[in-house]
């Protein structure tokens, strides 16, 4: 079965590659644009997918309210930037404060959602927590819709068109470049947090064996809260960045972005942090290629088709782990 899958994959890649190379040679700049556009997309997916995969890794829950945390980040940045803009503050200060408040608010929401909707269901069947997550997602969407507005609101880009970036701007805009660079920095910091810090090790230990984690003196509830807060922070960063890129936000942007990031996390292997990043980049670039060379109307259909295909042929994802523990 495994060999057949690989063979099938190679065959598809071969056919696609044959037609692809012809297209690439015909217009290499267009191809480069698509790759960079895909990387931008993928970066945003990665920032959101991290939250899904870390939460899944630690409590085996698909946190469907995670997309809403991202939306709240973008909304908060919009409000802060608008108010400070009216007061005529320096744009550098506005960027900093918009990010800071977006992260702060998203973290507060992520933390509270876990305490209200998931913690009481810690020992309940997994389906209960999943339904609770969907409920939380709908609640947050409607709450933001009522508190703000159902309309799309324009989001003035916080990131200026840098002078020095002028020569490259026709291939990739300054905003897109900023998205990719910010994502890389966030990934490196997060990787270091998980690998080297005490709380990072405690997160991994808790994900592997919660009872044993308690027995070495780890406060498991606190580690779970920390995981939600860290995931919310990266989602908030993603929210602000994409809002700068797209130029508008409303209460519903979290839904599709959340689902796409979820697909990316599954594609990479849910529960695995490098998997989420890889899955996001693969999804972002392949979506970009598909819309660029085939039909752009079917962008979302393409993403969901990928989800169905992975779930059928490789449900553990690209980097899904096999058990290595001995009993």
């Amino acid at each position, binding site marked *: 079965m495994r060999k057949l899958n690989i063979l099938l994959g190679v065959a598809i890649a071969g056919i696609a590659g044959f037609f692809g190379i012809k297209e690439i040679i015909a217009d290499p700049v267009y191809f480069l644009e698509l790759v960079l556009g895909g990387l931008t997309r993928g970066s945003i997916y990665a920032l959101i997918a991290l939250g899904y995969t870390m939460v899944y890794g630690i409590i085996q829950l698909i946190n469907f309210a995670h997309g809403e945390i991202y939306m709240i980040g973008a909304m908060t940045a919009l409000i802060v930037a608008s108010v400070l803009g009216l007061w005529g503050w320096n744009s550098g200060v506005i960027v900093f404060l918009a990010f800071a408040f977006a992260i702060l608010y998203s973290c507060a929401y992520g933390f509270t959602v876990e305490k209200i909707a998931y913690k009481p269901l810690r020992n309940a069947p997994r389906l209960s927590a999943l339904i609770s997550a969907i409920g939380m997602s709908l609640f947050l969407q409607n709450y933001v819709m009522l508190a703000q507005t159902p309309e799309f609101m324009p989001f003035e880009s916080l990131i200026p068109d840098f002078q020095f970036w002028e020569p490259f701007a026709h291939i990739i805009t300054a905003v897109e470049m900023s998205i990719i660079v910010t994502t890389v920095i966030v990934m490196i910091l997060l990787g270091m947090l998980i690998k080297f810090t005490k709380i990072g*090790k405690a997160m991994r230990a808790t994900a*592997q064996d919660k009872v044993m984690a*308690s*027995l*070495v*003196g780890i406060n498991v509830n606190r580690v779970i809260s920390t995981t939600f807060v860290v995931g919310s922070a990266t989602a908030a960063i993603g929210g602000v960045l994409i809002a700068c890129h797209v130029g508008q936000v409303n209460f519903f942007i979290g839904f599709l972005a959340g689902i796409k990031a979820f697909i990316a996390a599954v594609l990479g292997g849910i529960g695995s942090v490098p998997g989420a990043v890889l899955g996001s980049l693969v999804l972002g670039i392949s979506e970009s290629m598909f819309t660029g060379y085939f039909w752009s109307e079917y962008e979302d259909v393409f993403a969901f088709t990928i989800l169905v295909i992975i779930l059928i042929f490789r449900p553990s994802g690209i980097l899904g782990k096999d058990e*290595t523990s*001995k009993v």
Partner: protein
Amino acid sequence: MLKLKDVHTYYGNIHALKGINLEVTEGEVISLIGANGAGKSTTLMTTSGIVPAKQGSITFKGQDITHMPSDDIVKLGICQVPEGRRIFPYLTIAENLDMGAFLRNDANEIKKDIEYAYSLFPILAERRNQAGGTLSGGEQQMLAISRALMSRPKVLLLDEPSLGLAPIIVKQIFDIIKKINEDNKTTIFIVEQNANLALKAADRGYVMENGVITISDTGENLLVNEDIKKAYLGM
């Protein structure tokens, strides 16, 4: 030092511990023996706060710990090596040891304790960067004990340290347990199915059946007790 008084524990509807009374005094090695399903592991899990008691009380140095969260119990100095060892499989050996010292902040002392663990079990030092899940059963038991020592426990609870190990490894592990008791004055509470081994190592022993303690005596006396010989020592 550690005192369980009329402790009742339930798993759902199952009444696992039916009024346990036992006491561990400072510096002792205590063994709790009994058949499969007698409630030995539950006794330890209840002491560690993983499956809290429904009734009765557990005190440590006079302080009530019956309903204390597990991490606070570890903070007080009661540390458990659970059944099946429960090594963190994807953490390296060094990281597993770091996790054992989770509640401590004295980096230099932690380093010393890691060196002490490596001196007890040199094989762990050799494999310090290997994932815990790749170790053999005996090595995992060594790592599990070392990890527990990293918290500098006053009482070390050991659940079935001999389970699934070759006799030569079991002997090595029990020698180390004795050494830990003598070197650090650590009080040790062993739960074992291997009654012969456990009673020989112990100052005092308890025998458990169906969730109650039936006999308690010194290790030597229990070894020559006719009922125990028949039921647990196969003589």
